[in-house]
Structure formats: structure tokens, C-alpha cells
């Protein structure tokens, strides 16, 4: 993936001692995956694209809201309502048309993380929830990818580089070496609930981009094995030295199959919408309930023995207002997207009453029908 670049564009970093053409060439050939195009993702993306990172993936399934703009200046007011990944790509290509940018508008989950990570050299975690953070950590360890971690709350931010071996260590420190298990659901608030000062993710995000550039170029010393915290109210920076542990490795799924079976959303948030296939069958027999299949149109198998309304997840946000009032059960292939759909509808209705997600999805439904047919 050798790429040529315009020396003029990068002249001010090319003339740097230690940097030069060799480092620039490495940047232009590198592949960086950025999870989340929000408060942290925006500055990470802007600076990596400006610096000439050749290939960038952006994963984000969210749309731009007006309350994002105070900390996500990559977007304009007229972008409100548009998908972040696509809009970010558009603006970033204006900034630097020579960069190849792939916008991924599906949610990062157990079904796509490993194959996606495998295509990149380094992962940047700018997500906004624990389910994704644990998923990113475990997927990065399983695929052997380094990842740069950033997180913010109110006036404080954290930054670290995980899963990078520093020579003497057999294995790099990862997120579970700090926080082995997710906190109890709802005990640590995100930006939507706790608030965040706009400049903070800007500062932390740019530092994350700096770590990525150091990793790729080999110039400078990375924040490996350290957790750096900033309190913007006091300008206090605190660097803690981290210590790895054998025990935490056992918390990570041992292979791709066990990873695919993980349910990070449930692990971190509990699953208050989940019902089993048998519970669904009972409901169908007793009462009127609408079943909404949120799989994409070309996904198989078709649900021939179950009457469903198909609203693919890719257009769910725009179409969910068409779901009539009343009980609704969402179903997808395995129960991950349906759970997300249930959350989104519950948000829109301001109540989760009468909203369900079928655990195990179509796969479990088919299993159960096959079993019934062979009894």
C-alpha cells in the first residue's frame, strides 16, 4: 500500500529533526481505525488526516445532534441529523483529499469487531460507553492490535496506550489491567448524563492523535504502561504507572468463538428488554404484539413462520416513528441489534413499557422451530 504524498503539504513536519520523509512515508502507508466520531473522535480524525495518515476507518452509527456541536467542531450546524461517520468523511476529505477514508455506519459489536480490527495497524477508542470500551479492549487483545484509549467526564480526561509491548514485557498492559470488570450499570455517568466541558475532549483527543503518530512514525516515547489524567479546572496532570496482571488475561475471551458469544451490552447495562424465544411464543399466543425484524433486507433466513415488519437497522432511526403504538418485540440475527432498537424506541417513547428484544434472535427462533418440528 505504498502511497505518494505531496511534500509541500507536510513541509513543516518534514523539516523536523527525527521526522522527515521516512516518518511521513510510514504515516502515508498506515491504517488507523477510529471508534466513535464524537468528542474524542473529531480531533483525533482531524489531526490524523491533516498529518497524512494514509488510510482511516471511522466507525460510528450515530447521527449528529445539536448538543454535540459544542465539542465536535468537525461538524457544522447544517449537519445536524446526518450520520457522523459519513459527514466526518466528507469534511475530512475536504481537508486532505489524498487520504483514503472508510466510513462504517454500523455499530461495532461482537459480530464485526475482530474482522474489522484485523484490517488496521492501530485502533483508537473514542467511544462513549463501557460496553464498547470492553469490547474494543478484548478485540484488540485477541487480534494483537495496539490501541489508544481516551475517556472524559465533566472536567476530567484520561489517556493511555494499551496492548503495546515495551520490550521487557511479554504482553502489553490493557484496559482490564486497570478495571477488570465493568462498573455496576448506571454507576458511572456518560457525557449525556454528567456533562462535559467542550474543550476537554479536544485536548485529550489531540493527545490521542499524537500517540498514534508516535506509534506509526517511531518518533518519541509513547504513553505505554501509563495512565495520564487531566483535570482542566486545576490544570493538574497526573501520570500513574500501571502494573499488568496474569489474572486479568483470563477475563478476555480465549478465542474468536468465545468472543462472538460475549454480550458486552448486557454485561455493562443489564438487559431489561430481553425476552427468550419461549417468552415470545407465549406472548404471541396470548396477546397482540408486533414483531419488528431489524436485519438488513438481504439477510437470511427469511422468517416464514413469523409475521414481521422489516425495518433494517441502517434506516431504523428515520423509520422508527412509523411503528404503531402498542407492544413491540424486536428481533435480529442474534439479539444485539434488536436490543439497540429496543433502547432507541424506548428513548423516543420516553418509556420502555411494552418494548422487548428477542434474546438470541432469529438463530434461537430457528433452533426452537427445528426442535419443535422434530419432537
Amino acid at each position, binding site marked *: 500500500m505504498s502511497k505518494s504524498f505531496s511534500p509541500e503539504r507536510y513541509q513543516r513536519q518534514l523539516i523536523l529533526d527525527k521526522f522527515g520523509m521516512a516518518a511521513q512515508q510510514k504515516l502515508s502507508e498506515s491504517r488507523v481505525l477510529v471508534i466513535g466520531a464524537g468528542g*474524542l473522535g473529531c480531533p483525533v480524525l482531524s489531526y490524523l488526516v491533516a498529518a497524512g495518515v494514509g488510510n482511516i476507518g471511522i466507525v460510528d452509527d450515530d447521527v449528529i445532534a445539536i448538543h454535540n456541536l459544542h465539542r465536535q467542531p468537525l461538524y457544522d450546524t447544517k449537519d445536524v441529523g446526518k450520520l457522523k461517520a459519513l459527514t466526518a468523511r466528507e469534511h475530512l476529505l475536504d481537508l486532505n483529499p489524498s487520504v483514503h477514508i472508510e466510513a462504517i455506519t454500523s455499530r461495532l459489536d461482537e459480530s464485526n469487531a475482530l474482522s474489522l480490527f484485523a484490517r488496521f495497524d492501530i485502533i483508537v*477508542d473514542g467511544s462513549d460507553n463501557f460496553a464498547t470500551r470492553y469490547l474494543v479492549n478484548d478485540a484488540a487483545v485477541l487480534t494483537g492490535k495496539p490501541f489508544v484509549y481516551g*475517556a472524559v467526564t465533566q472536567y476530567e480526561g484520561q489517556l493511555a496506550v494499551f496492548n503495546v509491548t515495551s520490550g521487557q514485557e511479554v504482553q502489553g498492559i490493557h484496559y482490564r489491567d*486497570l478495571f477488570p470488570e465493568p*462498573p455496576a450499570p448506571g454507576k458511572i455517568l456518560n457525557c449525556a448524563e454528567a456533562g462535559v466541558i467542550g474543550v476537554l*475532549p479536544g485536548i485529550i483527543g489531540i493527545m490521542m492523535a499524537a500517540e498514534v503518530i508516535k506509534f506509526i512514525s517511531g518518533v518519541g516515547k509513547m504513553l505505554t504502561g501509563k495512565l495520564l489524567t487531566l483535570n482542566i479546572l486545576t490544570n493538574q496532570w497526573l501520570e*500513574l*504507572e500501571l502494573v499488568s496482571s496474569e489474572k486479568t488475561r483470563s477475563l478476555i475471551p480465549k478465542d474468536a468463538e468465545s468472543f462472538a458469544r460475549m454480550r458486552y451490552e448486557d454485561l455493562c447495562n443489564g438487559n431489561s428488554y430481553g425476552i427468550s424465544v419461549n417468552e415470545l411464543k407465549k406472548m404471541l399466543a396470548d396477546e397482540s404484539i408486533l414483531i419488528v425484524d431489524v436485519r438488513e433486507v438481504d439477510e437470511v433466513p427469511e422468517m416464514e413462520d413469523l409475521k414481521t415488519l422489516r425495518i433494517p437497522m441502517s434506516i431504523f432511526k428515520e423509520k422508527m416513528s412509523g411503528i404503531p403504538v402498542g407492544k413491540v418485540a424486536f428481533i435480529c440475527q442474534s439479539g444485539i441489534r434488536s436490543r439497540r432498537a429496543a433502547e432507541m424506541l424506548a428513548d423516543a417513547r420516553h418509556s420502555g413499557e411494552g418494548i422487548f428484544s428477542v434474546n438470541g434472535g432469529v438463530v434461537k427462533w430457528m433452533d426452537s422451530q427445528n426442535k419443535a418440528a422434530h419432537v
Partner: protein
Amino acid sequence: MDIQVFGRLTEVFGADKITVDPVNDTDSLLKKLRQDYPAIGETGFIIAVDKKQVRENVQLSPGMMIVLMPPFSGG
């Protein structure tokens, strides 16, 4: 003995720095904090002494810098 806390823990303790009666080691400190502030168990945190993460019981002496750092989730 001063303890610096961050993030969600500042709400649990009501301040970003608290002072407790001196104890001998980190295990005793954590035991005492869990008694006085049961909510600290909900967040998960690392404990660092003199800027180094502590995994096993460590002797404490006056003047050591003790930090409790929870995870942040926002982005």
C-alpha cells in the same frame, strides 16, 4: 493521611481530596474506606501509591501520595 480521588469518586467522597486517620497498609485503608463509603465499591477504581498502581498490599508511611482513580466513560 491524604487521598486524592477523581471522576465519580469525587461525588462519593464529596471532595477531590479527603483526609483519613493513618493506617499501616493499603488493605487496611481500602477496608476502612469501604466501611465509611460503601458506594466506592460500585465504580471500580485503581489505587496508586506514589504514582504507581498497587495490586497487592503495600505498607503506607506518612507523606505517601495515595490516589484512587475510577474509569471515565464519556467520549
